[in-house]
Every structure is written in C-alpha cells, then in structure tokens.
C-alpha cells in the first residue's frame, strides 16, 4: 500500500513538473490572440427559456442593411426568413416590400440573358460582390466574410475550468459576445505598437492585433425610430443579436422543445425507476 502511494506521488510530481512550464508560457514573449477576451453581455436568447427580442432583431436587421451589407453577405438567409415568428417577425406585407427593395439577378430569360428584377420573399439576400475575388480586390486584399453563420463560427477559448462550467450554465453566447466586443473594441494602438498599413487596431480580434475592417459603427449613423439609444454599443448589441438569429434561426423552438422533452424524460425516468424497484422487490440484488 505504501509503495502505491509512493508511485502515485512520484507520478503526480513528474506530471506537475512537466506541466508547470506550459502555464509559465502563457505570460511569455509571444502574444496570444485575442489580446482581450470578449466581454460577457446579457442576451435575451441566453439560458433555457431564451427568446429573441423581436424589436432588437428588427433594429439589428436595420444595422445589417444600412452598414454591414455594403461589404458582407448573408447568403444562407432568404427574405421570407424576416417574417419568422420568434425571429424579426416582420408582417407579410413588410417582407414583400423589404424584398422588393433589393435587386436580384435572375435568368436566363427567353433571349438567353441574365436580368435584374426586384426581390421576392423566396429569394436569398444578394451578395454585395459578385465573387470572393471581387470582394477581396475592393477591400485591400481581405474579402469580407459571409455573416450568416458568424455567431457560431467564432469562439474564444475560455480554458478548462470555464469549459466545464459552461456545460452546466448553458453558455452558448460566445459568438455574439465576440461580435459585440469586436465592434465596440476599435481603438488607437498603444504606444510602441505598430500595426500593418490598412489595418485597424482591435484587441478583441481573434487572429491578430489588428484587422482589415475599418471601425464600421459610429454614434448616430443609423436612425432608430423606436427611441432606442443610437450608440455604437447599442448598435453592436443589436446586430450581434441579429446575427445570432441568422446563425440559429430555430433557437427559440429548440429551447422550448428541449424543456418539454426534458420534463417528459424526468417524469418517464422516475416512473421507470419506480417500476424497476417494484419488479426487483422480491429479488435480493
């Protein structure tokens, strides 16, 4: 028994000895990106009973349309999605007129030519650039990524401890937190830090200290009609929520069904447990 404890102790010592430098590395010379972790925000769609805030999604759509869509596509989305209940929930008439406000390419027609026509609810959102190469050429070599899935395609590692906690607290908002922090995080580089030409310093950016996208938001650039504050922070919050919806349009339905399923399973498991106890009552085991 004593020898066993010795083995275990030696083993633990060897392991901690080997791992210690790994943790020391974290404060080392090479910076690890992002320089700052995303700030954690409160979202209406977080948690087991989370729901999208319809007004917020409508505002978020407005930001996307007036600001983001100049460079970024949302290719997986159709106009009809905008009428989704639990989503932005525009009325059918609003969806038709919103769609008609876009020109989409269609064809070929009888003469064999492609042509432009006003959008219909069943159309996908048109992209601002005809292809990736054109997008890159117009934006200093870095093509603006599609935003449909952005809120699920970005996640900053939170370390082992938080990874375990997140399972129980259902933290799934790393994407919108990241988008909000990035959009509000543009600033002048600290003294002594040089960044490549044509990039903008942002400590929240995942891959480097600066990115090609210029700060897209300024106070009061989009006019809200419902009296919501017209600040960069509010704009960023609204568009992040909108992008969570484009990434996961069935989120509300999913969580609602999840609650029903889990309540059912807990009751069912309880009944099965009682049945099992009854069946085994007379058999020692």
């Amino acid at each position, binding site marked *: *028994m004593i020898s*066993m404890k010795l083995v*275990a102790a030696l*083993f633990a010592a*060897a*392991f901690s000895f*080997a*791992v*210690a*430098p*790994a*943790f*020391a*590395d974290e404060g080392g010379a090479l910076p690890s990106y992002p320089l700052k972790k995303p700030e954690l925000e409160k979202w209406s769609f977080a948690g*087991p009973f989370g729901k999208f805030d319809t007004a917020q999604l409508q505002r978020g759509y407005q930001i996307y349309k007036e600001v983001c869509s100049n460079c970024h596509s949302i290719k*997986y989305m159709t106009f009809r*999605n905008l009428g989704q209940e639990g989503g932005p929930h525009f009325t059918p008439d609003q969806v038709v007129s919103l769609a008609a406000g876009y020109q989409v390419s269609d064809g070929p027609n009888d003469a064999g030519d492609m042509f432009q026509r006003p959008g219909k609810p069943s159309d996908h959102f048109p992209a601002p650039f005809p292809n990736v190469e054109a997008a890159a050429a117009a934006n200093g070599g870095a093509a603006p*990524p599609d935003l*449909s*899935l952005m809120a*699920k*395609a*970005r*996640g900053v590692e939170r370390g*082992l401890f938080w990874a375990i906690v*997140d*399972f129980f607290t*259902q933290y*799934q908002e*790393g*994407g919108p937190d990241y988008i909000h922090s990035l959009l509000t995080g543009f600033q002048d580089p600290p003294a002594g830090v040089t960044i490549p030409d044509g990039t903008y310093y942002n400590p929240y950016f995942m*891959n480097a200290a600066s990115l090609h996208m210029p700060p897209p938001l300024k106070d009061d650039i989009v006019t809200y009609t419902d009296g919501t504050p017209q600040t960069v922070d509010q704009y960023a919050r609204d568009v992040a929520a909108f992008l969570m919806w484009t*990434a996961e*349009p*069935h989120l509300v339905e*999913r*969580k609602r*069904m*999840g*609650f029903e*399923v*889990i309540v059912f*399973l*807990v009751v*069912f*498991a309880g009944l*099965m*447990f009682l*049945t*099992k106890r009854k*069946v*085994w009552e007379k*058999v*020692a*085991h």
Partner: protein
Amino acid sequence: MSGTSTYQPKNPVAKWFEARLPILGFAHSSFVAYPTPRNLNYWWNFGAILTFMLVAQIVTGIILAMHYTPNADLAMNSVESIMRDVNYGWLLRYLHSNGASLFFFAVYVHILRGMYYGSYKEPREVLWILGLIIFLLMIMTAFMGYVLPWGQMSFWGATVITNLFTAIPLVGNSITTWLWGGFSVDNPTLNRFFSLHYLLPFMIAGVVGLHIWALHIPGNGNPTGVDVKSSQDTVPFHPYYTIKDVFGLSVFLILFAWLVFYVPNYLGEPDNYIAANPLQTPAHIVPEWYLLPFYAILRAIPNKLIGVIALFSAIAVVAFVPWLDTSRVRSATFRPIYRQFFWIFVAVGLGLGYLGSQPPEGGYVIAARILTVYYFAHFLIVLPLVGLLERPKPLPSSITEAVLARNAAKA
C-alpha cells in the same frame, strides 16, 4: 442463443411459423429467458445504451442523407438547408452530431467497465476483441462523418489524418493519393467518405450481432467476477434487466437532450461553421473530443512514422489485455492494487485528452510524452506485474452469497 429454449408458442400462426423458422424461440431465449446474473450494477446499462445509440445514429443518419449533397461546392449549403429549411432538420442534425459524442462517451464507460471488472478474461476474450473492432469501426465512421459538412475543421482534419499514411515507407505517398482520389483532399475524397460513412455503421451493426452472440455463449460477467454457479445466481433478462435498461437509458437520454436542445454546439468547433478553404489553415487543428487522447499520443512523438505506429498501437494494445493481465481474479473489487492503477489509468486518459486539445508546444509536449509512456506502461508493465505480485482479497463462493452478505451488512 444460450440458455433454456423452452419457448412454446400458443398462437397457431406463431406455431406454424416457429416450426419453419424458429426465430421467435431464438429471440425468447436471447432476450427474455436469457439467464443474467442478479447482481449487475448500473455500469452494465451501457450495452443497452450503446445499442440504442447505434440505432438512433443510423435512423437520424439515413434521414439526413436524404437531404445532404456530397459535393465539395454544395455540402455546406445542403447542411445549412437541413438546419434552416428541412422540417426539424436542425433537430436531426443536432441529434446526429451530439449522438456521435454520446455514443463515444458510452463506449468509453463500457470499455472502462470491462477493464475494471475484468470482463475480458477467459472465456470472454473473443467478446473483448469484437468490442475493440467495433470501437475501431466507430472511430473510422465518426472521422468520416465529421468531414461531411465540409467546414474548415472537416477539411483540415481530413488532411491531417489522411497525411498520416504518407509516413508509411516507400508506398506511403501512393497510398495517400489513392485514398484521396487525387493529389489533395478534394471532391473525390468527400464522395468516398460519404459512401463509407454510410456503409460502416451497418458493418458495426453486424459486429455488434457477433459481440452479443459471443456474450451469450458464456453469459454476462458480474461485479464479483465469480462465475454463475446455479440458477439461483441468475434472473431472466426480462423483466429484470429490460426494465433496468429502460430506466438507465432514460437517465442517459436526459443528458442527451440537454446537449441537443440547450448546448448543441458545446462539443463542436466554431471553425467548422466556416466553409472549407484549402488556402487557409486554421490556427489549431483538433479532432473531436473523443479522439483527443489518441491525438495527444500521435503528437507526443517527434518522428512521424513512430507517432503513427504509436497511435495505432494505443488502440491495438487493448486487444491483448486478456493475455497481458496475469491475475486469476477478474473483478477489481477484490484487487486492491490493480484498483488504484485503474483509476490512475483513467486520470492518464483524461490528461491525454486535455493535452490533445492544447497546442503541441513547450510543457504540453513533455507532459504528453510522460503520459504516453505511462499509457503503454499500464498495459505492458503494470497489468502483467500487478497480476503476479498482488494478493487479492478472498472471493465470495457465489454471486448469491455475495449479494446476501452485502444486504446483511446494509441492514
């Protein structure tokens, strides 16, 4: 399969049928009358859970395949159309992707239960090896399935793993080109991975049939490791274990539902929601969590060929456990030293999993090397030596005696 086939159908149609194909009697003796030790604990639930998961994966997978397009330009579009436009497509896909994770979670518990209670020992060696073959097929199936959405991690994961074959001397590059169907991971690779991802689960189902057959010849092991000595030691499978399995499965499904409905992307990599881009390598290429310990072993070794050999050996060595373990006692309950080494082994496995998720640099590599050496030492040194040197506790003379003694102690 084994057991008493005393089944006599009363219904005339069943009688007529039974005289021609005795499948009802077969099912009755295998899953109703089948004598099962009366003392199985909840760790024995995982066989039934795994059977359920295999069926669930096949059912959701077949429906997903009706909507999926295995083409490098269209795969991600089709996955997103499943997520957005197919009725309950999001549910099917999240069930399938999280189902794979829970399948592996259950199989790891199942394997570790076998290691703890010595389920691999004579006369169950073939049963053990068949289980390991299922595990290997599961790894291949899961890997190919992960490639299908054709996201960044799909593409680069496929690139890293298929590149392992280039380490084979002389013919490595030719084999890799043959696997790819071209000179890099591309559309032909995706097509064949889809085809094989659809095929392999049915092979798994076949080997599962053999696995259950091989189980029903000697019958179940049990927590004491003592053989069944009389009919007093057993109960019929139905209703005793059918109800217990349904209860265990219900609890397991709560965990499954939590993942699917509340944190469906918790176990996934955000990078896989970015379309595959052969020109842009992700910062960290990591496999799904269930393959991380093996990934850590692969990267712990600086030489590529030896790393690949170590990776495959880490799985193959498990097949030899029935002969590496020299102890005459099955259950760790009566093996005080082995029991401690078992838990150290579990900790080492978890440690390797963590290290597999970290970048291969600095202290992480050194730690991974130490744990890799220990992983193999557990099988090649600890198992043979502990079996010879350890003095096991006295065994109960029968299952029934052990049960009654424990109940008396409780009362």
